[in-house]
């Protein structure tokens, strides 16, 4: 009896499933054959794995905050384009004094989503908030050259710097101008951007509604929903079933084959994420340049890149990706050459090799990379122990306490070569020339001078093998056919959605 019941229920379920599948198939083919031409009212569904932990950039809401809000909901005085250029945004005009210490900005005639006008006071509030005591924003230290901010009149702001800073306007591209009246921004938003924050469902989605009163050009779509998925497979399935229109970042090259048909477009841009084997340059044997160079030359990075990214991405030879002005092609500066590696090791007095531990964060591909390094280094007699740790442990043991020999990490920030000028940074690279050049570069009178100095730093850290820069991640986005205007490059998670449209 029971079994007969079960069977009939199973039959019913099967019938229902088949029926709904047929209906779904019908829907899919129906929508596919609709008319062409961009639809300015279409809502774009963005699938992402990078959910912000809170909505305010100064409280460490992670790079997910940048992906959703910067340029979309909030705007800065300047905008950093997808090609890493700085262009004016809320600052209509900029005047710099001869000594480079006083910046005077004239503001655009913009309003916040709440209806309040953009004022000089709001800019003053926003800048002071960014470098204030409560802020843990990533660029806080670089912007701490701000001495005073004065609201001259309603549309004019004067910023006084304590030292010259050539990358001041670039860094301002990351600072949101927020409405001082808005209060707590960790779960709400009030900016001047083309979108206002709509529905915010923690753990699920963030909806951006079009700002009808936007001061600039109206966006090419009718709103954007960021849908979050914890699992990459679930995210891929969402794209396949049409639950999302595009995926902001695909970290698994082996699932790309699903999207190589004409129904999807795979967009490959340059990221700023560098996979590093970072030595603790303070401790033996890594305080010896020859040892570091030996390790570098012992690793077949081409094979590694191929293993991890299946031919995508690119090899780099220092901390600088091609998208930055001071890029040099240094990929072969420390060439893959096991014999050279063995010679260097012998020169350093480690002819019989040595043993060290790589503290490996459990997230991402690091443990696969660690296994590869273990194999490669074994060939020159160096024994690698792999110690798998959590991200929190990494932050404490490696980043804060500097208690490590070597570690693996992906560094996502753009223009982060300046970490090599900070001897207190976790890898502890300490070179007087590099420190001077980087300090001088920030004080430079022209971009040319700045570029010249940082290019020197670039060459020097590569010659010193301050770290092993293994490769540069590709930035892979996948969009459904008919979706255009998706930003290509992944400059520190910036993702402007206003140009995306549906045909």
């Amino acid at each position, binding site marked *: 009896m029971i079994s007969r019941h079960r069977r009939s229920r199973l039959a019913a379920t099967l019938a229902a499933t088949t029926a709904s599948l047929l209906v779904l198939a019908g829907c899919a083919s129906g929508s596919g054959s609709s008319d062409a031409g961009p639809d300015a009212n279409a809502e774009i569904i963005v699938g992402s794995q990078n959910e912000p932990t809170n909505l305010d950039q100064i409280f460490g809401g992670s790079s997910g905050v940048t992906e959703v809000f910067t340029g979309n909901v909030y705007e800065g005085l300047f905008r950093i384009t997808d090609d890493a250029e700085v262009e004016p945004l809320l600052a209509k005009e900029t005047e710099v004094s001869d000594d480079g210490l006083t910046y005077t900005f004239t503001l655009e005639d913009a309003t916040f989503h709440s209806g309040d006008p953009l004022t000089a006071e709001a800019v003053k509030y926003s800048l002071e908030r960014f470098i204030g005591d409560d802020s843990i924003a990533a660029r806080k230290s670089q912007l701490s050259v701000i001495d005073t901010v004065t609201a001259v009149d309603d549309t004019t702001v004067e910023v006084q710097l304590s030292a010259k800073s050539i990358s001041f306007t670039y860094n301002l591209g990351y600072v949101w101008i927020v409405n001082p009246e808005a209060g707590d921004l960790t779960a709400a938003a009030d900016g001047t951007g083309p979108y206002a924050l709509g529905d915010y469902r923690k753990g699920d989605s963030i909806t951006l509604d079009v700002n009808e009163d936007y001061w600039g050009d109206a966006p090419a779509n009718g709103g954007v929903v960021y849908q979050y998925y914890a699992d990459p497979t679930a995210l891929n399935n969402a794209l396949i079933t049409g639950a999302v229109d595009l995926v902001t970042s695909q970290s*698994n090259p082996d699932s790309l084959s699903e999207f190589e048909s004409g129904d999807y477009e795979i967009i490959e841009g340059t990221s700023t994420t560098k996979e590093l084997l970072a030595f603790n340059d303070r401790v033996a044997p890594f305080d010896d340049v020859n040892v570091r160079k030996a390790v570098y030359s012992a690793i077949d990075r081409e094979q590694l890149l191929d293993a991890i990214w299946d031919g995508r991405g690119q090899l780099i030879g220092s901390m600088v990706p091609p998208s930055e002005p001071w890029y040099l092609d240094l990929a072969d500066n420390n060439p893959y050459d096991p014999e050279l590696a063995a010679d260097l090791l012998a020169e350093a007095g480690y002819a019989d090799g040595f043993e060290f531990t790589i503290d490996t964060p459990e997230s991402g591909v690091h443990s696969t990379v660690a*296994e590869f390094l273990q194999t490669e280094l074994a060939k020159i007699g160096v024994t690698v122990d*792999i110690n798998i740790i959590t991200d929190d442990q990494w932050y404490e043991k490696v980043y804060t306490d500097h208690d490590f020999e070597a570690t693996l990490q992906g560094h996502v920030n753009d223009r982060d070569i300046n970490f090599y000028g900070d001897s207190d940074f976790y890898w502890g690279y300490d070179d007087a020339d590099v420190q001077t050049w980087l300090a001088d570069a920030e004080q430079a009178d022209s971009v040319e001078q700045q570029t010249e100095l940082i290019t020197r730093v670039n060459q020097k850290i590569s010659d010193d093998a301050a770290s092993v820069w293994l490769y540069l991640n590709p930035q892979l986005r996948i969009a459904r056919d008919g979706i255009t205007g998706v930003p290509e490059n992944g400059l520190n998670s910036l993702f402007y959605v206003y140009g995306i449209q549906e045909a």
Partner: protein
Amino acid sequence: MSVTVLTEAERNPRSRDTRSRRPRRRTSVNLLVGGVLFGIIAVVAILSLVALPFEPSDTTGGRLQPPSPEHWAGTDRLGRDLFTQLMIGARLAMLTGVGAVAIAAVLGVLVGLVAAMAGRWIDDALSSLLDIAIAFPTLLLAMLVVAWRGASLESAILAIGLAGSAVIARLTRVTATRVLAQDFVTASRTSGTGTLRLIRLHVLPNVWPTLIVPLALQFGGAVVAEASLSYVGLGSPPPNASWGRMLQEAQSTVLVAPTAAILPGLLLVATIIGINLLADGLRDVADPTGRTLR
């Protein structure tokens, strides 16, 4: 399946005869199939100590190659031979099973005997403790041990063994108590046999048979538990190729290279089925009436 058996039994008035005959035949099949499955894995595990087709760290095989005459199970992302890894995985699985069962047996029997022999409040206290320990999920206990000792195969074995020992201890206590209440034990006691001698002569030989089947089943449970732990990164660390870790690593490439995910899964299933059939067979041999009465 069960429906057919029932109707057959209803239709056939002489079903009692078939029922009493059938188990003995099935017993031998269970034992045989289980023994062969388990035996193959065990032989592979031992072989892996003697010879491997490739060095485990040899990365010259090419990325995600399909099975070929050279690489019988294909290669992984780093170009390492998967058949080699599967062999090492078999060794780790056997090691886990043997280690966990050994810990469970030694610790469990010890605690169980103490509880049974001591009686009174010690028995009550230990029994309560055992109930709590049995209610505690194995994987949670394993995570605690990993947090304490760091992720390694030893940690996993220790945790799984500890979790298993509670069940064995309770079983030992019950059986030992029953044995101690028997007349021949009382007789032996009154004739001046010491406690240790009593355990060796009378208690252990009578407790042991009831433990063999649960221990065999625990072997299978231990292999699964280690695979689960490795899958979530709490088992043996890289580059040890535990089947659970192989599954985890193959997950992202399952559409491109399905063999890398299927093979460790199949081996895991084969091992568990093998040991479970073996345990079933052992139970039937030890207690031929058990199956018919059930």
